[in-house]
Every structure is written in C-alpha cells, then in structure tokens.
C-alpha cells in the first residue's frame, strides 16, 4: 500500500448498517465482516478519487492523531481486504 494508491470498494462490496445487531458491517459476496469504529472510519473515507496518502492525512486531521500511525494501522487492514478481493487499488 503506497501513499499514491487509490483504494476503492468494488461493485458488490458495500457498507451496511445492521439495524438488528446495531453495528456497521461490510457486505461482500458470501461474506459479512463486522466493522469496528476504526475500520468503519477508514472505509467511509474511500471515494475512488483520493489516494491512500490523502485519506490518512484527512483521518489524522479529523482524529488529531499522527498520520504515520494511521497509515501503518490502516495499510495492513486494507491490504488484507485487497487480498480477499474486497478492495480495488488503482
């Protein structure tokens, strides 16, 4: 995951508010992933336009946290999503 990569959720993978369990989930083919607050915050920023670097900068400003820390934490999560074909990278 490099700062210039543009991550996006592909068609068929979407965020969903699970009103019965009262949690955010990611719905994908044959898979449902329960999202914690951090994962939901990261995925909510993906718009297919901004790069990974821009997104981590935005999250750093929003949560008043070091960008390097946010980049390190979210790169692993997003790479695992990519390996499972839940995330496209351009």
């Amino acid at each position, binding site marked *: 995951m490099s700062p210039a990569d543009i991550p996006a959720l*592909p*068609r*068929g*993978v*979407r965020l*969903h508010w*699970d009103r*019965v*369990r009262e949690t955010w*989930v990611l*719905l994908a*083919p*044959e898979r*449902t992933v329960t999202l914690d607050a951090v994962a939901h915050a990261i995925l909510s920023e993906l718009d297919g336009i901004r790069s990974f670097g821009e997104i981590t900068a935005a999250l750093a400003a929003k949560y008043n946290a070091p960008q390097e820390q946010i980049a390190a934490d979210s790169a692993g999560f997003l790479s695992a999503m*990519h*390996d*499972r*074909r839940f995330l496209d990278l351009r």
Partner: protein
Amino acid sequence: MTARPPIAMLAELTHRCPLACPYCSNPVDLARQENELSTAEWSDVFRQAADLGVLQLHLSGGEPATRRDLEELVQAARDAGLYTNLITSGIGLTERRLKALDDAGLDHIQLSLQGTTPEMADEIGGYKGGYKRKLMVAEWIAAIGFPLTLNAVLHRRNLHQLPRALEMAVEMGARRIEVATVQFHGWALKNRDALMPTRTQAEEATRIVTEARARLKGTLVIDYVPADYHSDYPKRCMGGWGSTGLNVAPDGVVLPCHAAQSIPHLSFDNAREKPLSDIWYEGRAFNAYRGTDWMPEPCASCERKEVDFGGCRCQAMALAGDAAATDPVCVKSPHHIDLQARAEAHAAAEGAPLVYRSAPGKPVPEPAE
C-alpha cells in the same frame, strides 16, 4: 439455549430446472410449480428475514431464472435491505433479463460450472448446448459488470478439469471460485458409484487448490469444499445447526439446511402459516440440534465440538441411521473405518451410469442394482 439471529437465507425459489445434474442438492421429493410461493409471499418472507437479522440472501433453485418474476423478487429483496446473490446455471438468462436484474439492484452472481468442455458439462448437466449458452451468459455478466463467482462442482468424472476451471474463472473476470467436491445427499447419494472421487484425486485437488491460492492471491479467491468421505474431521455444516442460516423451500417450508427433510422424525414449519421469527427461535426442527446440548459421546466431551458441531446431521442420518450420531466422517465415529472402506469401494466402481435428477412431479429413477 438462546439462538442468535441468522445472517444468511437461501431462498429456493423453485425446484424446476432445465438441467438434471446427478448431484442436485434439491430433495428427491421435489416441490411442484403450483405449490410455489407467489411473488407477494416471497417478498413478505424477504422483509421478515431482514427484520430477523438476515443480511445475505441467496436466490437459488432449481434454476431461479425459471421464475418469470425473478426481476421483481430481486427488487423486493433489495427494497428489504438484503445483499442479494443469484445462484444460477445461466440457462434462462438473456442479456435483456440480466440488464433488468442490474436495474433491480442484484449485488452478485454465482454461475455454476458442470465441466470445462462442452462434452463434460452437457453430459453432467443432462442439457445439450448448456455449456455454450453458459459462456455467453458469462460474457454478458462481465459486460454489465456484475461481480462473479464461478461455482465448480467436482467429482470423479471431472476432477481432472480443476486446473482449467481455475483458468476459466480468471478469464471470465471472476473474483471468486468455489471449488466444491460433491456432497453426498439426496440425488448424489444415488450416484456414489459414478461420482465418488478416489483418495488420490481428493489429495491432488487439495494440492492444486493450495498452489493456486498462493499464485492467484489478490486476483482470485478460492473457497474449497474438500471430499469429506476421505477426510478425518467432518465439515462445520451450516456453521452449526440453526446458528447462522436458514433455507426456505419453494413451497414455503423453512429448513435448517437444504437436506434437512431427509431426517424423517423432524417436522417443519411453513412461512405461509407462521412468522419466520417464531420458526427460527421456537421451531422444533431448528432447536433439535442447535448448540451442543443434544450431543452424545464422543461429541459431548470432544474439544472440537464447537469447531465442527459434530458435522452434518443429514450425513449422520444417511450413513449411521441416526441424525444425532457423530458424523461418520469423523475419526472418532465408530462408523469411520467402514465409511472410508465404502468410499474406496464407491470410488473403484466401474461403469456406473449417471442417475439424473428428474423434474418435479415425475417419478424418481433408481440406480441399477
């Protein structure tokens, strides 16, 4: 025990199908068209499912495209807030219908593969021209941009085609492939002599899948159902009985799994007569093998009891004659050694003809003695 809400529902919209696969997962006693739930009844079931906590809806059959109201049903499912997956052979879908399904909000398609050549696929499916048609449907699916999973069903006759099936998935632009060795229930039980893989084939399939998972990481996700008669531990059937999913049959009968009607002492509620929530939480069939309290030994004291929940109840019924027994696939089952010997014998049988699935309301063929 307290059940949690279900995550997934399989809606068998119809048992009608142009194909006649000899391992069809439908029950041997097929529901007739005149007993199928109407558009309005299915739509109500979808809303109840969403209220109950279901997130993923699988529209299956039979062939779901046989239902002329499929587009309306997809729309109703999406309106209910469900992630909507179509499980199809492709037969009955046209480019126009696929565009209408796209407009209705269909999330994902699973396309079945009976073989990687027209000769194999059409013989297994019992439908001439089916393979060619399926490839055309795959092109339309890719052009529209639907996310695609290829469902390859494998057995002794076609396991050698697994490498080509993996290539085809990549060529079709599929994100996933399900490599499923035939599970021997219902129709497939009649075809064990024709379809049982050899132990060597089963091991080779595992090796091919392991290699392909590493090579295709980030390109193709591979879900793998190994040949369980040759395994030492049973599959975690349905993620545990009555724990994560439910099936609704074409006539509205609500089942803990698609083969549950093979357990003769269970009786099942119908969504036409009772709310889905009552059936899930209170239904006797759902509570029969829910959790671990029902388990006899060797399951009750086994450290794997919440790993595989004793395996498959329908398989225990079919092979041990007792739905509460340990799945005979398990090394701890007293039937395990016998099962492995039977698997070897089925795999070594020569010249067994395929017993094809029949149509709803038609007589059931029996294998030759």
